[in-house]
């Protein structure tokens, strides 16, 4: 899966491009669907689709491990959690809370401007340099990157990187990894605590009630 260097200006339409367009348009469309949908249940569904499409884009970019994780963690974990949330709070009045027109206008305005800023930047930094002189003085990593890409599974290298073993194109990430681990633990505990807090009060009230009766 590679794109030839020769078609830098006008590349042929290949499978990679088609797939990219497919997933890219899908992701964009469902993202917008999330925005414009008023129903929270549908929003959740669209979100799943958008994330799944993103996962596809990950695969296309050669990040197989990240794409997998995207599917597993996001679509399989996080969004399930979200859906639980929707279900727990999904009573009629809340399923579709209407947003005031003014908000829409403001949001659209701000969003539009943001987009107007981001897209030129994407063009500016995303395009290859105009001439070869631009690539002089590249680092070794850049040199590697500029060489012909080789499709190799990334899971091993990522795993090593996370365990703190720097590879040729990856730094050691042991410390961030550990921090993330602790962070996750804390978040879980916190989430559990938050979710329990109300029940305690209720229990106390009940005990008071029972004591009263």
């Amino acid at each position: 899966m590679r794109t030839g260097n020769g078609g830098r200006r006008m590349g042929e339409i290949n499978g990679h491009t088609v797939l990219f367009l497919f997933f890219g348009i899908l992701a964009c469309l469902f993202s917008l669907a999330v925005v414009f949908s008023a129903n929270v249940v549908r929003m959740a569904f669209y979100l799943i689709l958008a994330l799944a499409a993103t996962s596809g884009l990950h695969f296309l970019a050669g990040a197989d491990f990240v794409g997998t994780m995207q599917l597993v963690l996001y679509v399989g974990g996080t969004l399930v959690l979200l859906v639980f949330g929707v279900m727990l709070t999904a009573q009629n009045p809340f399923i579709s809370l209407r947003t005031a027109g003014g908000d829409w206008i403001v949001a659209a305005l701000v969003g539009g401007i943001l987009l107007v800023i981001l897209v030129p930047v994407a063009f500016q930094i995303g395009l290859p340099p105009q001439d070869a002189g631009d690539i002089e003085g590249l680092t070794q990593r850049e040199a590697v990157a500029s060489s012909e890409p080789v499709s190799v599974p990334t899971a091993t290298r990522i795993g090593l990187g996370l365990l703190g073993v720097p590879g040729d194109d990856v730094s050691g990430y042991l410390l961030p990894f550990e921090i993330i681990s602790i962070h996750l633990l804390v978040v879980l505990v916190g989430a559990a605590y938050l979710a329990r807090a109300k029940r305690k009060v209720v229990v106390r009230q009940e005990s008071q009630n029972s004591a009263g009766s």
Partner: protein
Amino acid sequence: MESILSNLLLLAWLLPLASFCVILFFGPRLGTAGRGAAFVATGAIVSGFALSLTALILWVGTHGISGAHHADSADTHAADQTLSPDSQVAIDPSAAAVHLVAADHGDAHGGDHGHGRVGPKAAYFGDWYTLVDFDRLKITIGYYIDALTVLMFTMVTLIASCIHFYAMGYMHDELHDVTDHEVTLSNGEHLKRPGRYHRFFQYLSLFCFSMLGIVVAGNIAMTFVFWELVGICSYFLIGFYIERKSASTAANKAFIVNRVGDFGMIIGLMALWGSLGTFSFGGEKNDAGDIVKPGMFAQARAETDHYALKTPEAMVESARQMGAEDPEHTGHVLLIVAGLGIFCGCVGKSAQFPLHVWLPDAMEGPTPVSALVHSATMVAAGVFLVGRFYPMFTPEVLLTIAIIGCITLFMAATIAITATDIKRVLAYSTLSQLGYMMFALGVGGWVAGMLHLITHAFFKSLLFMCSGSVIHAVHTNEMTQMGGLRRKMPITAYTMLVGCLAIIGAGVPTLVGLSGYYSKDAILAQALHFGKNNAAWDVMFYVAAAGAAITAFYMFRLWFMTFIGQPRDPSRYDHAHESPRVMWMPLVVLAFFAIFVATPADIENFTDPTASPMVQLLEQARPDGTGIDFSGQLAGVMMPAEHGSHDEEIHLAAGMIAFGTAMFGLLLACCLYWWRILDPEEVRSMFAPIYRFLRNKWWFDELYDAIFIRPTLFCGRCIAQCDRGAIDWLIDHLAIWMRSFTAGFDRWIDRLFVDGLINWVAQRTYALGIWLRKPQTGRLRQYVVFIVVGTMAMYLLATFGLTN
């Protein structure tokens, strides 16, 4: 001799002080209810009298009754009369003093004049005790003993002894609890209080001590000390009935009016002290007895100047020291000021016009007090001092004295006509007689004045004690409630008659009379003599003569109203009785003296008034240089020598006039109050305005109240108000202003500036917070928008802002 005399008198003087101290500390415990106090006090004063009498006898033994040479007296008189001042100067220019045309015949001619004294008069002086001593300036307690001192001592102790005995009877009520009927309490009852018998005698003793101190005083400062002390004794004795408002007010009045006189006296003292540097009459001696500093008299009348009065060198020097343009003249003025100042004190003490107002009120005291203090001794002290200080008086001062005396004698006599309170009549009579004495001294009659002082002491104390006896019997002072008492109390009545006759100067002209006859004749004679020499002032003689008539009138009015006719108040009459023996015995004794004290002892010269031993003794005491004519420098007045008045022509004329006027007054009294030919009521209504005028005592009290007391109190209130209203107001308001200023300052600096700055910052911060709060809507979605906008802003900033 000197030490014996001085020690005798010292002892006689200090005995009453001892008595005072004993009674002060042990008074109530002496005998039952303090009865012993009377014995202590009486014993002291009687011993004092014995000592004084011894001194008198010693004196007479040493100096004789007189050194008189009567043989040539007539000639000398004649010579005196013929000599004019100019001729005297012509005879002996060296004798002429600087300021005063003066001559002392006897001394100047080295011969013997009518009263026969060669050289200075006999006097002993010295110091017992030094009160204050600043090298050259000394204030001492000393003695100055001459015939006058001894006579006065004897007279005072004698009368005081009589009065002590009398008081033992009179104050008998005070031995037990007393109900004072004149004091009503707020609950309507009369005041009941324990008796104060011992305290009365305590005060009497203190008074005797003080009075004798004045008499024996060797310097004018000592006189002043005891002057004040008799004043305070008088205060205590007048206010003896302390519960009576009238009594305490009268006591205050007496003391304060006396202080007015003392104010003048202090000025006199200052004038003397500031220039002469001594207060001593005779001179200051050192331990060896030599005179180290001449006395005042010697400075004013130097022996070398034949005792002619001239301004003391020290006064001239003092005037020069003060930068006077004409020191001689100013020095003379200083001498006049000194004389007038001293006389001022005498005016106060002797209750002369215009300070006479206290004496009638002083009758609030018990009658023995009136007899002793306010007639015989203390009030006479003023006259005594004028007599003692006589050498220092310039003719100007003497003229003032005469005028004051003359006014007093007339004014007091007129008031006495209308008074109905028996003691007040006597009080005004006392005033009048003191006026006579002053008048006599003022017109140059030193012996006449002094003689009247002594005779008056006897008969006036007799009169007062008689009136006390009457009051004791009828328990009222008002003569309108008496009458016919002669039958109930004959001894009192007749002794009082003696007193009345003595005071009007009854006697057979040119022949013989009671004591008052001699003294009053002498005064009038000298007055006539003076009038003849100073035509401008001869009116004073007629005033004095009229006074004699009035005296006779009011004295017999008193006697008739009290003892003659029908009782006006039968209840009082019924209770009346003769006083106990302890009270009437002194009356008899005093009556005896009132008759004979001035009688000539020489049988051969029985009709010559100057032959009386009393007169002779006084003549001995006459201050050096006063027995001559001398005239004033400022006021054109000539003081005629006294012996000139013994001239047959003058003396006879004066005697006849005195007799005539007295008889006139007496007859008038008889007509009105005995024979009832005239109705007093009718007379009274006929002269109603005059009666009211006299009845109100010439409105002196009201006048003084209006022009002195009220303004003084007003001034006091003003000043107190000024203190509170002005000074304190200023201080308080300064404080308030200061406080408000600092408060303002504090507000301005602290609140406005410092606090303001802080508050401003806080307010700004707060406002910023409020302003910043506005975006904090709490709306999550807006926050998101903000975040996005913020991100964009940062991006734009990074892109366009920072790169430029």
